[in-house]
């Protein structure tokens, strides 16, 4: 498979302005099939905007977003906030993507339960969003994104609200899910360690308006396991990424 063939998504010179302030400027980015791509950069540099552009929720002011094969594939999106329906319990929220596909609860039930199991919330299926902690709500939102088994997963700081242990566990789960299902992921994070651990590539954004100033390939063997966190290779990449980030923070 050549590099061109493997490419799933291409953004060429994509810019987006809000009112009169540019949020993203001339963004060039590609996503390969089965790849785990992280976006990292200072707050307000346009990472969430980039995800929303990719998902087709907003249109670029200029530039082109092209999917291999023409049409946008099915996407799972984890927003920066949980974005749950407050009138529906946890399992109904997770069921939503399947319901919108026209599936009955009877047929979808097993998948909803499996998705909740994955994020460790099987026992809270009947709870309502207001009864959940922030981290739990976020995990429900992750289960909802996974339940339809999308071929592309866009995640906007999904683990930011979680404690370290849960975060590590979900990192491992996510790595496994992605490996097993050949899902392509675009993952926004502020954590250097998380992005090195999970990614095949990390794109570093500049200060607003965002551009990609550096792309770092993490050439470590897949699948990654917890030992990788302790390896010299991991430290090496973490150091390199931190340097790249420092350069952008320093730049005007």
């Amino acid at each position, binding site marked *: 498979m050549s590099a061109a063939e493997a490419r799933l998504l291409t953004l060429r010179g994509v810019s987006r302005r809000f009112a009169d302030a540019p949020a993203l400027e001339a963004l060039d980015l590609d996503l390969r099939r089965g790849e785990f791509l992280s976006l990292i950069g200072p707050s307000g540099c346009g990472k969430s905007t980039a995800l*929303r552009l990719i*998902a*087709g*929720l907003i249109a670029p002011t200029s530039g082109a977003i092209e999917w291999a094969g023409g049409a946008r594939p099915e*996407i799972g*999106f984890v*927003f920066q*906030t949980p*974005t749950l*329906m*407050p*009138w*529906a*319990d946890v399992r109904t929220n997770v069921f*939503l*993507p399947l*319901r*919108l*596909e026209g599936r009955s609860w009877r047929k979808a039930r097993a998948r909803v339960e499996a998705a909740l199991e994955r994020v460790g919330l099987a026992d809270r299926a009947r709870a*309502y*969003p*207001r009864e959940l902690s922030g981290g739990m709500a976020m995990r429900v939102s992750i289960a909802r994104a996974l339940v*339809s088994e999308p071929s592309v997963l866009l995640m906007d700081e999904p683990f930011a609200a979680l404690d370290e242990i849960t975060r590590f566990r979900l990192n491992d789960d996510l790595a496994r899910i992605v490996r097993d299902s050949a899902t392509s992921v675009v993952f926004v994070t502020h954590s250097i360690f998380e992005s090195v651990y999970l990614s095949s590539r990390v794109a570093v954004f500049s200060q607003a308006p965002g551009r990609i100033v550096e792309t770092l390939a993490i050439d470590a063997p897949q699948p990654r396991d917890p030992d990788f966190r302790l390896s010299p290779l991991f430290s090496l990449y973490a150091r390199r990424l931190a340097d790249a980030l420092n350069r952008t923070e320093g730049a005007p």
Partner: protein
Amino acid sequence: MTAPAPRARLRDYVLPLVVFALALGVWEFAVRFWRIEPFVLPAPSAICASLVADWPILSAALRVTLATTAKALALATAGGVGLALVFAQSRWIERAFLPFAIVLQVTPVIAIAPLLLIWLDQETAVLVCAFLVAFFPILANTAMGLASTDRGLVELFTLYRASRWRTLTRLKLPAALPYFLNGLRIGGGLALIGAIVAELAAGAAGKGAGLAFRIAEAGYRLNIPRMFAALALVSLAGLAIYGTLALVSRLALRRWHESALHPDA
């Protein structure tokens, strides 16, 4: 901050009742002590006696007024929600028709009533008046609820390519429910006021005589105890409508909406 449950119950339910009973006692005592004439201020006991004696007339009037209120509220709900849905489909339609609704809202119903009484038969005119005042809060609240659906959820539905219809039924309507119920509660009280005002303006007797007509009639005849009895029934009807709609709202929003939650739940 949280008072123990029995104390809270005492404060929330028992205390108002005790104070109300005390006020009635003071009133009764004052009327007897100073020998106030019944046509100036009847004692609570006299009002109760009138309520019992005049029950056939008063209960018929109560039924008329309540029926008008209920019909008006039903029509206002259908109309208000319907128009809010139409407004939600297109900003153009909203811009075109909202001014009419606002003009009807800001014009006092008492000023419209005489005109309606010329155009329509009395029963319909009263109904239309009650409808007009109840309609706007339901429309305005529902429209606001439909418009303030969580942007993120709207995007989520877009992402999953949900149809307009699905987005409406599964997202916008549930999201608007608390707003609608709030409008309904306001509209319920206003429908009663509208009905009373229109009955007063109509002023005619007949089989359609409501509570307001009985109040006016008793006033002309200086039958002040009956006037008070009818007034008490109007208040009770208002309380009952408010209580029912508040209960409906509480039950519907029990699980999810902050306004329906007990403070220490």
